[in-house]
């Protein structure tokens, strides 16, 4: 038996013993375990599950064990992921620190920053949010204006960040700030970590058309931040950001595939709201066709993801293919959202009152919330620009 097989058996046994029954099965939004200074848990089982995983370093299984991570190899991490999927385990911790800031610190951070922050991320002691976008900047991220003046041992930050997920709930924020106006706009940007308890930092929730408000605008008013909080070199934050953006796009396209896409099955909704024949065929042929079209497209997207995975294993990956996944996935989801509501009729447009069942209410919220999918993390237009340039080698227009 190979080491990896042994690891698999061991892991499987451990998970079966240590993952409480209530922490298995489809994860609903109210089951998510968040970190933070004043961490609370959805349930006692959730706390137990978190603590057990944390103690093994498996909240961040691929982080080095010296920083409270699991110290697993890439192959071991894949095994752990597979075994967790097998039991349908709830993630023991969810935060932007884990998938985004942590890797960036490991790659670009000073020893001091790593020692101070990575263990806290892995142990869920702080909740992190991200400060990239600014009002008016949109897709043109590099045109950011939030200013950090050099004051010797610290920077003085003034400006604002928008579209910060969980900005109100977080303890710390990692930001891009402008430290110089010279040279191309990508230069003179610095990546810095800010404690949100510092005087002058304020986060305000943004109301969305969907009624949800996980986003915030964060204001900085003469905020003093020590220079030791800079990740990477001063003025060279764009390098750090680009590496992070890759993670973000990947997360967005996984988000659209997984959590959000997996909810209501169109054929079931069609049968329930439009009816079906004795053979189980949806009675309204136009919706039946539209559903088949959607299901085909999602199947194609899923298989293409799998093809890329296979190509990567065979070291034959066409690196252009991942570029298309976010564009395709998010567009299809919006088609699905509209279709779902079309079939539910007015039942799919409920805003409040208990007249609507849970799946109807969810259909409405997703219809509205998912309008963000083709905008956030690189608009569809930007994605198409990138595909045209990188995958197709089309000449740069004066604009793009």
């Amino acid at each position, binding site marked *: 038996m190979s080491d990896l097989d042994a690891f698999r058996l061991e892991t499987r046994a451990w998970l079966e013993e240590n993952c409480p029954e209530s922490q298995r099965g489809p994860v609903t939004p109210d089951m998510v375990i968040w970190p933070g200074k004043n961490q609370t848990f959805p349930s006692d089982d959730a706390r137990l599950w978190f603590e057990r995983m944390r103690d093994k370093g498996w909240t961040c299984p691929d982080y080095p064990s010296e920083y409270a991570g699991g110290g697993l190899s890439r192959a071991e991490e894949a095994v752990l992921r597979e075994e967790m999927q097998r039991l349908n385990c709830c993630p023991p911790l969810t935060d932007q620190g884990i998938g985004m800031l942590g890797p960036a610190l490991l790659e670009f951070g000073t020893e001091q920053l790593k020692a101070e922050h990575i263990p806290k991320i892995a142990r869920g002691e702080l909740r992190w949010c991200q400060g990239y*976008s600014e*009002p*008016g900047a*949109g*897709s*043109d991220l590099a*045109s950011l204006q939030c200013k950090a003046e050099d004051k010797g041992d610290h920077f003085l930050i003034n400006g604002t960040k*928008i*579209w910060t997920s969980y900005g109100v709930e977080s303890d710390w924020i990692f930001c891009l700030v402008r430290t110089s106006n010279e040279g191309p706009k990508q230069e003179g940007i610095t990546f810095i970590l800010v404690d949100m308890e510092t005087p002058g930092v304020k986060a305000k929730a*943004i*109301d*969305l*058309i*969907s*009624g949800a408000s996980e986003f915030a605008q964060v204001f900085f008013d003469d905020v003093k931040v020590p220079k030791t909080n800079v990740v990477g070199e001063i003025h060279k934050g764009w390098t750090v950001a680009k590496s992070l953006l890759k993670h973000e796009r990947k997360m967005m396209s996984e988000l659209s595939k997984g959590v959000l896409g997996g909810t209501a099955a169109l054929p079931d909704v069609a049968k329930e*709201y*439009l009816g079906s024949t004795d053979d189980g065929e949806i009675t*309204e042929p*136009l*919706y039946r066709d539209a559903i088949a079209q959607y299901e085909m497209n999602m199947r194609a997207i899923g298989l293409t993801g799998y093809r890329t995975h296979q190509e990567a294993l065979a070291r034959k990956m066409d690196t252009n293919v991942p570029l298309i996944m976010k564009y395709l996935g998010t567009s299809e989801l*919006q088609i699905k959202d*509209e279709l779902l*509501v*079309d079939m539910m*009729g*007015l*039942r*799919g*447009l*409920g*805003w*409040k*009152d208990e*007249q609507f069942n849970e799946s109807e209410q969810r259909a*409405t919220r997703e*219809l*509205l*919330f998912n*309008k*963000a999918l*083709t*905008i*956030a993390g690189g*608009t*569809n*237009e930007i994605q*198409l620009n990138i595909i045209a340039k990188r995958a197709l080698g089309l000449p740069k*227009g004066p*604009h*793009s």
Partner: protein
Amino acid sequence: MSLVLTEEQSILQQSAAEFYSSVMPVTAFRQLRESEAVFDAETWSQMVELGWSSIMVPEELGGLEFGLMGMGILAIEGARTLAKSPLTTSAAVSVAALNFCKPSEQRDALLSALAAGEKMAAFAHLETTQFKPAIIRTQSASAADGYNVNGSKSCVENAQSSDVILMTARSPNAGFSESDGFILLIDPKADGIEFNSVGLIDEREYADISISDFNIAKDEKLEWNDDAAVAQVLDTATVIAACELYGCSLEAFERTLEYVKDREQFGNKIGSFQALQHRLAHQYTQLELLKTVVYDALSAVEKNRKDAALAVSHAKALANDTARLVTTEAIQMHGGIGITDELDIGLFYKRARVLRTMWGDSVYHRSRFASLSGY
């Protein structure tokens, strides 16, 4: 000249545009939303003073008899500011329903009261959440001194805030899908009628109604003019919805146009990007077609043209599809701020999303158009 506004109609349009933008801008909608009020009584009385409540009422009953085209113009302009008022439910659809009834003392009195703005009415017909207008189960049976009513209605707009509900019903011995029975005048404040409010994303007042063992007087039952009456009222409601969809879409489009001319990205106005230009140009072509088809449908219903039903289904299907395209693109082109509640763009999308479903989606209306065309 049915596709071009007459001088009178143009004047109405201008004054409506001015009224809505000054007295009932989108901020007024937001204030009503905040206060959870259905309408602003003060504004409504101004609209009554302008004669808008009497536009479709016959002259002999104190109305202006200005026709459906005039009401359509008001609906388009009102939709551009998301104006909330009893105009479409009471002054358009309910008045149309009464117009298609045989004259009676009750009917004439109610029409006069609606014209004068002394009363507001709601029209309750549909009984299913899917648009199946032929299914009518609400019954009214003869009883001592009048009738006894049992049944339910689905998602009726402004039912609770109105003074009277015009409820379609059939007699117990009528065929299952014979919807062209008659209209009952129901007092929403009376005992025995139950409302369940239905909160939709456009944040207007809707309610499911159930009514059981409810007694009305003999003269509170009105007879339809003829078998086609119910369909004509529904066509009126449908074309008015198409007008509102056109208004919402046009406003969302024009705001987006303004935005892309102003907004810069990568050192250029985003309106100079060719991909956006082509998409906007295409939307413009659809809006121009929609304008034509909406005007044509208004005129067809107003003049009781033979192809009125076909024209209405055409207008609603095109309005649904154009609104979907334009209001969705409006959000996308606004980028991040497009999905915030702070900006109005999302409100136009939400209102249009409800209207797209109300009175029939595109699949329904294309099928009806095909049937009416003989295929």
